[in-house]
């Protein structure tokens, strides 16, 4: 019941985000042929960029000369950063909205346990993000085809599509836990967004300045670094376990907190 409703209710926003992000990503890929045609000029131009900037956007290790490399520098940012913002906002409202909108007294007067409410809502978040990522990946694939006839390494493509999904799940889980702890929607949205943006900021900082390198363990954006994925056709196992750990812990925290929470409005 709850699961079905949450998935259905999320559709409108979900498709708006998909159209916006997918459209951006597709647009970016559509300019790739021009880039590829002027490769020499591009290389000259790249030499003029400050090294820090090249590092920040992975332009030092990835080249503009393949569709995948081009996507990893330009489009990937949209999918990871803005997708994470979407994930955090969607998951962050999931539990707390019943309190903010004062519908929790209705829901909890029905014969459904709190554990089940958390479980169904968590599942709805997962489903929404899965759908979000599948459709975005399909759009990206179409973008690649459109960009050129070059064969795409499907393994890399799979990895570069899986990584954002894991990233979105990670941020969604964090926001979901906050959603169970707090009582006001607005506060949850602000905190979740702050976490995403701060993580992104840390990621930029740690890739530019070596002395901040330890920061890479606290920013999920580093976990799904496109350069590493394209080079190794894999996500670092350590990072995969870190993300899985965050997801599991956050859902458990949400469950434990919600179980004992006073839900007065």
């Amino acid at each position: 019941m709850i699961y079905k409703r949450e998935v259905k209710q999320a559709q409108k926003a979900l498709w708006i985000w998909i159209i916006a992000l997918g459209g951006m990503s597709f647009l970016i890929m559509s300019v790739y042929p021009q880039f590829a045609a002027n490769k020499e000029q591009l290389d000259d131009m790249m030499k003029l960029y400050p090294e820090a900037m090249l590092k920040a956007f992975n332009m030092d290790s990835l080249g503009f000369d393949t569709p995948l490399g081009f996507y990893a520098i330009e489009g990937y940012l949209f999918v990871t950063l803005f997708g994470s913002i979407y994930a955090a906002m969607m998951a962050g409202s999931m539990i707390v909205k019943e309190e903010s909108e004062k519908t929790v007294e209705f829901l909890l007067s029905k014969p459904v346990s709190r554990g089940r409410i958390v479980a169904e809502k968590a599942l709805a978040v997962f489903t929404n993000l899965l759908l979000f990522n599948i459709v975005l990946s399909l759009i990206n694939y179409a973008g690649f085809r459109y960009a050129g006839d070059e064969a795409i390494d499907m393994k890399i493509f799979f990895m570069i599509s899986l990584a954002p999904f894991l990233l979105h799940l990670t941020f969604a889980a964090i926001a979901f836990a906050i959603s169970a702890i707090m009582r006001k929607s607005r506060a949850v949205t602000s905190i979740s967004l702050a976490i995403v943006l701060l993580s992104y900021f840390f990621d930029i900082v740690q890739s530019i300045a070596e002395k901040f390198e330890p920061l890479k363990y606290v920013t999920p954006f580093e976990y799904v670094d496109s350069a590493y994925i394209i080079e190794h056709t894999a996500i670092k196992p350590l990072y995969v376990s870190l993300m899985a750990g965050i997801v599991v812990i956050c859902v458990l925290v949400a469950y434990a907190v919600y179980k004992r929470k006073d839900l007065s409005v």
Partner: protein
Amino acid sequence: MTIIELNGLTKYYGKNRGIEDVTFSVEEGEIFGFIGPNGAGKSTAIRTLLNLIYPTKGSAMIMGRDVVKDSQKIRKFTGYLPSEVHYYEDMKVKELFAYSGGFYKKDCARNASYLAERLELDTSRKIEDLSFGNRKKVGIVQAMLHDPRVLILDEPTSGLDPLMQNVFFDLIREARDKGATIFFSSHYLSEVQKLCDRVAIIKEGRLIKVENMEDIRTNQFKNVSLLFHDASKANVNIDGMLQKERIPHGIRFLYSGSSRALLDQLKTVPFDDILIEEPSLEEVFIHYYEKGGVES
């Protein structure tokens, strides 16, 4: 059989008092009123019964089941109307009823449409377009659509016009005739008087007393103001007179006793004008409060 039982139920919100050591019970088939001024702790007690909030101390049972441990089972046969009615704004009324009914393992659609018809509620409208009174009706229907054995209603009549209040009272009586036990809160004494068998009175988080409506009926309260052109005549003494106070050109007092006895006594009083009113709950409370609930 005891249906609802509160045992020393206490709830603190941090350091703020919700309710303190509230003990009473509701028997099967009763319509039981729960009255007190705003902020007395009525909603706190009710939300604890529904396990929306956890008790600080004490316990409560509904049909022999603990409200904390067996909350989910209790909610199968309990209907609840919150004092503030908020539903999913994006839903239509009938969608909400389907959603609500979907949680119970039986078909509630027919009952929902019957109730909506009785309350003259248009189920094809969106919740966000409904007035407060209509939202209240939605609340009543979703609380009753699964034929609950226990109905817990938090200020059910606020927002309903008098005509609808009567329909609602009829629905409550019908539910009772079908075997339901009804527990509802109110801050209108007159409403409780019309409907209830017994009533619990709560103030500042503490139970003051539980009264039989029969006793309250024989012990009616009236607010009496007597006006005199000649102030020297204003020395009146009437049996059952409480809290006498002077007002410009006369006196005002709270009367407790039968209304007929009041009229008999007033015949001999040389007043020039008289005003007999229904006292506010506050005034009746002050009376109870002064007595401290010692007398039964």
